[in-house]
């Protein structure tokens, strides 16, 4: 698979592309990454790639000419039709795993790193673009988002991740968050591991873990509770958690 990244900061990607699994994927030929410096396609002598928006308003807008030329070059040099162009944009559709899976099936992914307030809207008249946002927060530019897309896509490519000898249980979890865990030492700077875990009563430990899992789920992911399989004992625990009591039993 080939991933082309169009950016005004190609050096941003130097270090990540040299690290661990990404490097391995590139070295082994599973992945080819091409960086295109949009600034090289600037048409004026100051190499500017941005300008003020028509109609006023704050911020700068990425100009269309350099981006158009850079994208045209990327497409001209693309040797497959099985490709997709992605524009990172705060206004885009939310990126998720399913999208990563979809992108990993293309032979060529072209990612345009948006910058500034946005990209001249007319770019979408010339190219079929997926506008993608990695989340509802502001980052300096699309480079970080492009890296997220790059990493999530490449690890789905065959050969880039090894099969490892890890196992999972065939009795499946019941949709609660896992209970917190502790390890030695039993006391650290005055903080002790819960007594129940140090004493040898395994049935009680089991109830304690269940209590903790329920409490954590209530606190962090209450949405998981509605589909969890709860016993009468669980319901009792939930009531006492809701009443603010500590684990007793």
């Amino acid at each position: 698979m080939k991933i082309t990244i169009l950016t005004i900061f190609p050096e941003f990607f130097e270090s990540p592309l040299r690290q661990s699994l990404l490097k391995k994927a590139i070295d082994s030929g599973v992945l080819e990454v091409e960086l295109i410096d949009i600034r090289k396609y600037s048409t004026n002598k100051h190499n500017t790639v941005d300008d003020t928006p028509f109609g006023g308003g704050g911020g700068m807008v990425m100009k269309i000419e350099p981006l158009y030329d850079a994208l045209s070059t990327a497409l001209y040099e693309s040797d497959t039709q099985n490709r997709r162009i992605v524009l990172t944009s705060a206004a885009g559709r939310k990126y998720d795993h399913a999208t990563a899976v979809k992108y990993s099936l293309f032979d060529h992914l072209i990612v345009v790193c948006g910058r500034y307030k946005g990209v001249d809207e007319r770019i979408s008249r010339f190219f079929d673009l997926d506008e993608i946002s990695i989340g509802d927060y502001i980052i300096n530019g699309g480079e970080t988002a492009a890296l997220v897309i790059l990493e999530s896509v490449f690890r789905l490519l065959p050969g880039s991740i090894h099969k490892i000898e890890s196992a999972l249980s065939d009795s499946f979890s019941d949709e609660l968050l896992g209970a917190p865990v502790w390890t030695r030492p039993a006391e650290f700077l005055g903080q002790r591991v819960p007594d129940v875990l140090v004493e040898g009563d395994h049935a009680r430990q089991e109830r304690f873990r269940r209590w903790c899992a329920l409490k954590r789920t209530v606190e962090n992911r209450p949405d998981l509770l509605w589909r969890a399989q709860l016993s009468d004992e669980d319901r009792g625990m939930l009531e006492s958690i809701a009443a603010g009591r500590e684990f007793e039993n």
Partner: protein
Amino acid sequence: MDQELIAIGKIVRAHGINGELVVIPLTDFVDRFDDLESVVLEAPQPRRLAVRSVRAHKQQLLIALETIDTRNDAEAHIGEFLSVTRAELVELPEGTLFQFDVVGMEVRSEDGEDLGKIVEIIEMPANDIWRVEGRRSFNLPASGNIILKVDRTARVVTIRLLEGLLDLQ
């Protein structure tokens, strides 16, 4: 399939001057290194090397392999995997599956409808998500009230088709 390699460790550093390798275990069964006789190194081409010694070192392992005798030898292998073949995998405790075996299994509804194949396991805090690709692709929560049966021999997972499940894209 029998020559398929499964990684059990990754070489991250050289240790000392005699070619010892610092290895991060990539297995849920770290004790398996105690009586490991040989491993396969994959690059540049797969070859089997006898294990001379294994000792624990913090959360990692120090492993000496035949023909790797100097620090230079050891450094040349940084980043590589120590692997075994399928026949050499540890015997699984009852009630467990290898993650990589789940990948590729077929998913069917209780009524026998073919829903696709599992392509990936994504570990999540509440329960794992199994990515299923088929006529429709969806994210299957590997949870007790959805997964009814895993048939290892037939490589089929039977699920309860809860309303809205196929919409978990």
